[in-house]
């Protein structure tokens, strides 16, 4: 009856691993991926210009991730290799988001069960189709579970709270400025201040583009977009930035135990 020294039940091990990974992922800020009229929009608060959370994988496929930078970066590179080698072996149209999501799910699941430490990442693989009905958004968690999301997905940080705020504003077929506005108000805590253009990483998979659908929005283009996004909601936004409400010192969600892990990407 006596247990060997240092024994932990498999359930306990899995629970501990999952909790460890969840903590790491909740430390950063959320990333929003959502459909809009012409494709799929990615929005991530990210002060770094070089360390991206959002990336192009292939002609129609985009990638977004939260968590440890080095871990999701190696997943991103593997995804690019997978897509390029498949597109080169067969044809460019034969690379699918579903295939990529399965590859990631296998790898994440294998690491979750086999390694001491699960990957502290949560990722989204999104594929833009010829019509809005053909768009696909897959969300993958650290244990390899795949979720086929409808219309929008939020990963990392206080994901549930952000998703709740996004649901209130989200509707099908939003134009790009309105979609960006919805994403930003979801990413901003009530009473908080919206991150400026320099603190944002924004990209779209635009089905109207030729060849490669992925387009990063930055610089003047993003600023113009932010202006037109803010314009219709000027009135509710104005009092928040005024002196009446106590200024929110921290725009991001509360940070769990002192965050010395998430160095590169999360701000």
């Amino acid at each position, binding site marked *: 009856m006596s247990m060997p020294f240092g024994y932990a039940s498999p359930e306990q091990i899995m629970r501990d691993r999952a909790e460890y990974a969840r903590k790491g992922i909740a430390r950063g800020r959320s990333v929003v991926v959502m459909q809009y009229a012409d494709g799929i929009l990615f929005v991530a608060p990210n002060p770094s210009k*070089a360390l*991206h959370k959002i*990336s*192009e*994988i292939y002609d129609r496929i985009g990638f977004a991730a939260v968590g440890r930078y080095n871990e999701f970066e*190696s*997943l991103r*590179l*593997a995804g*690019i*290799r*997978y897509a*390029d*080698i498949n*597109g*080169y*072996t067969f044809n460019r149209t034969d690379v699918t988001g579903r295939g990529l999501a399965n*590859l990631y799910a296998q*790898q994440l699941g294998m690491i979750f069960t086999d390694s001491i430490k699960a990957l502290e990442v949560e990722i989204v693989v999104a594929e833009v189709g010829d019509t809005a009905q053909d768009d696909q958004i897959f969300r993958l968690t650290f244990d390899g579970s795949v979720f086929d999301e409808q219309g929008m997905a939020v990963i990392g940080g206080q994901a549930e709270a952000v998703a709740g705020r996004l649901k209130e504003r989200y509707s099908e077929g939003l134009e790009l400025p309105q979609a960006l506005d919805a994403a930003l108000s979801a990413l901003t805590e009530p009473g908080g201040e919206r991150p400026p253009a320099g603190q944002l990483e924004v990209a779209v998979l635009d089905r109207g583009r030729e060849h*490669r659908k992925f387009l990063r929005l930055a610089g003047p283009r993003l600023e113009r977009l932010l202006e037109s996004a803010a314009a219709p909601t000027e009135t509710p936004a104005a009092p928040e930035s005024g002196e009446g409400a106590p200024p929110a010192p921290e725009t991001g969600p509360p940070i769990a135990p002192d965050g010395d892990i998430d160095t590169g990407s999360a701000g």
Partner: protein
Amino acid sequence: MASQPAWMNSLFTHTGSSSFTEFLGAHAPNLLPTRAETLAAPVGDQIPHATTIVAATCAGGVVMAGDRRATSGNMISQRDMEKVFRADDYSCMGIAGTASTGIEVARLFRVELEHYEKTEGRSLSTEGKAHRLATMIRGNLAMAMQGLVVVPLFAAYDPAADSGRIFSYDVGGGPYEQHDFHSIGSGSIFARGALKKLYRPGASPQDTVLACLQSLYDAADDDSATGGPDVTRKIWPVVAVITADGFRRLPDEEVGEFVQSLLEARMTDPDGPTAPLR
């Protein structure tokens, strides 16, 4: 997992350079366009060959044009072949020689440039692109010796220099940077001679397109393997213009208008425009 190809295992562990070709060579060498086996007998004459490509720099960019004919020995194997390929937003390549290998090289080159751009988050420099193409051509040297020669011409808009640049190659690789204009393929001697007289430094893209089409016409005039404009089938040369706005392949209607004006002038003057003697 057992049914997966071997390269699947390398997707996550490969930490080499950002070159797609190197990844392919290490993990799936059978997919490379260049082959290690040698042939029992040279087959060069029996395999379709792509012929003449011309390129010339213009104001703010570069123009590339290629005829549409592919030949196998004395046979015309295709009338509407495409041999000018978009490589990325700011570059393109044309091929002369063995068509099948050339098409594969063009396809791999496109993935190579894109792969680097996606993994590194920036585009390769123009020289970097030219060097990568040289390595691919060098890899085909053994087959070139067996008759499967393929030689590309690479043209790019260089954002750093804000001008067009042209690089040529031989079977052993390269690159050799060419200034102003260059041509490759069986009709290249005639095309280059014509282009030498028609090329104007700093001319507009439209004028340079016309100069390239004139030189292709002259090549088709004297070289049996180069196809002239096919008026009955409305098959015109492929013309690409690359400027700061990116790569643009001229639509057939637009090229058709250039060709019509060219043909009308040649009705009265079959040898085409003449350059001033003094």
